[in-house]
């Protein structure tokens, strides 16, 4: 059912990452989980085109500072202007040539039994867990660059502004499917609770 790319290569050996959930919580039988339609619980990577998208955005964001500081450098510092420019060149190479692919390699997302789990970050490793039960809204966002590369971003919003997560670089064609899947799981999670406990806020 899923056209999503399987994980490429072994998952990043990350001793600090949290395996979630540790076990099936009480009251949830494996059958219930299997009934949920669609995507399974394996770890997924982003679409490879995401790297291209990030590289282009990184390059675009560098243009202004490079032009301004290099111009100032050449005007006021004479030959040292080249040093400024050279420094930028090294930084740009590192940023575009190494950091963006590394970011891509680190990105993993997973639909576990109870939550969307995102793991990413090259320098600062991050893990975000957004339980289906708390999902209030799911948006598909596509910028012009994303449309060109046939990518989409999935924004998962909870009642907490800071606790909302963005899943970048999903293939455009898969995004609606993932969204429907998440909505189904959110609805199911709410239906599993009764009375007061249904109230997520």
């Amino acid at each position: 059912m899923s056209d999503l790319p399987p994980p490429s290569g072994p998952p990043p050996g990350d001793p600090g990452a949290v395996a979630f959930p540790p076990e099936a919580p009480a009251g949830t039988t494996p059958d219930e989980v299997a009934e949920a339609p669609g995507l399974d619980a394996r770890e997924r990577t982003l679409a490879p085109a995401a790297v291209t998208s990030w590289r282009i955005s990184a390059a675009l964001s560098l243009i202004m500072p490079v032009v301004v500081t290099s111009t100032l450098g050449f005007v006021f510092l004479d030959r040292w202007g080249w040093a400024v420019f050279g420094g930028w060149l090294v930084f740009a190479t590192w940023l575009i040539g190494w950091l963006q692919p590394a970011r891509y390699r680190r990105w993993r997302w997973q639909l576990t039994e109870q939550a969307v789990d995102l793991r990413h970050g090259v320098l600062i490793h991050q893990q975000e867990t957004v339980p289906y039960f708390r999902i209030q809204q799911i948006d598909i966002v596509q910028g012009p660059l994303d449309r060109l590369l046939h990518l989409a971003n999935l924004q998962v919003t909870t009642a907490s502004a800071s606790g909302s997560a963005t899943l970048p670089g999903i293939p455009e064609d898969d995004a609606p499917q993932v969204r429907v899947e998440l909505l189904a799981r959110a609805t199911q999670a709410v239906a599993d609770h009764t009375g007061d406990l249904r109230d997520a806020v």
Partner: protein
Amino acid sequence: MILGIPAAQLVQVLVVPIAATFAAGGMVTLVMMIILGIVGLVARTLDWWFRTFSFDGEVLRVDHGVLSRNRRSLDVARIQQVEVQRGALMRVFGLAAIRVETAGSASEPEVDLRVVPEPDAFALRAAVRASQQRMGDHPVTQDGTEGPPAATRVLTVPMKHVVISSVTGARLLVLPAVIGGAFQFIGQQVGNFANRVTNYLIEQGIAVDPSELTGPDWRLVAMGAAGILVLSVIAAIVVGVLRDGRFRIDRDGEDLHVSRGLISTRESVVPLRRVQLVEVNRNWLRRLLGYATVRIRSAGGSTGGDGRVTVPLLPEQDVDDLLSELLPNVPGIPELHAHPTAARRRALFRWWRPALFTIAVVWLAPELLPFLDHPVVERAQWIVLALLPINTVLALVEYRQLAHGLTELVVASRRGALSISTSIAPVVKVQAVTNRRSPFQRRLGLTTLVAHVAGPGAVIEVLDAGRDAARSLHQRLSAHAASPTPVVPDRDRQVDDTAAAGPAGPSGRSEASTA
């Protein structure tokens, strides 16, 4: 339904600008201001005239708009909070303002009715509460009987504590700037007169002509500082007493009623089941005196600014009692666990970084910028060196305070060096969990974990917990968030099912957004 007289508006719209105009002077401005004032008055009167509201027991309807009519319908189940505010002038005319909050994250209240006769305001609030209680399928009371119990006093803050709170609060730090600014503003307004006063002061030898100033006259600086400090203390007390005087919290069924203010009063209703986060703050001064402040955050975006209900001052030994009122079945601040010693290195690093940066700047700047080569700067160079030992002590204090705890009902985190803040949130309110590890933290085996609850900036941050502790915390909190069935021993289950999630109310998440 609205019968109020727009007298408050008249005063607000006309008198203030006219007074301002006289201060500024100039006939043209005066005319302009009057025209603007009349236009504004007409607009506001029209707005008031066309803004009507009705409440039929289930839906609050507000119609407004002069040319394009808007109707807003608000289901009583979605209402988080009804707040009645009465300014000094409004009390004279028997008026009140109503703000109705829902659980949106918007910064504006959902419904803002600014001029309503006082009885109507209270009637609406009572009606909303009554129908919320009626719609809840089992209005839970302490003894299990049906029906709303009488309101009980939870907390009264005596005037003495309000005064202490004003003097020990952060407002005291802001006021000198405000007072200084006010002096400057008045100086500009009064113009020549101020100059004459300044000259007089210079002649009398009390002040020194700025143009003759070669170095700071420490005696004068000290005098000015003392003067501003005294004024600040007085102003802080006045502001604090006016704002927080007669602060009291009552509990009416499952709602908390918070009232405060001497002249302009403010009454908020916070449903207990909407309490998202409780923060116990103790700055160093209050810690010395044995006091704390407690801030209650509820969902409802625009409770904003001060609307997060803050108890101005509370003896430390009473904190646990208040907590058990705010978070039912929670006996107080839970047992907190300290973080591993590796966190001390991080704390030291965090505090040394700005200190070393400041020292580097102050020592290197005169080398690069010759005009900074001045005796004052030279003295400052030695003074900033003191930052290093000071920050070391602060880092050690911060490490000693770092702790977190998790029980079946709440998650708590404590941090801070000068001002120590303990945040406590019910686990059923946790919306999402994140953790992050920087390269330094990875090397030291530490993790920073953040539990997000609803409301702007409402998070519980567990800084630099041990990796394994953070991992287990992440798992347990995620499990709670995903399936908010309280995990409690069976004998307590009956109590906790209702209490942990609050009373049964008309529930239902926002269908609009998930649909």
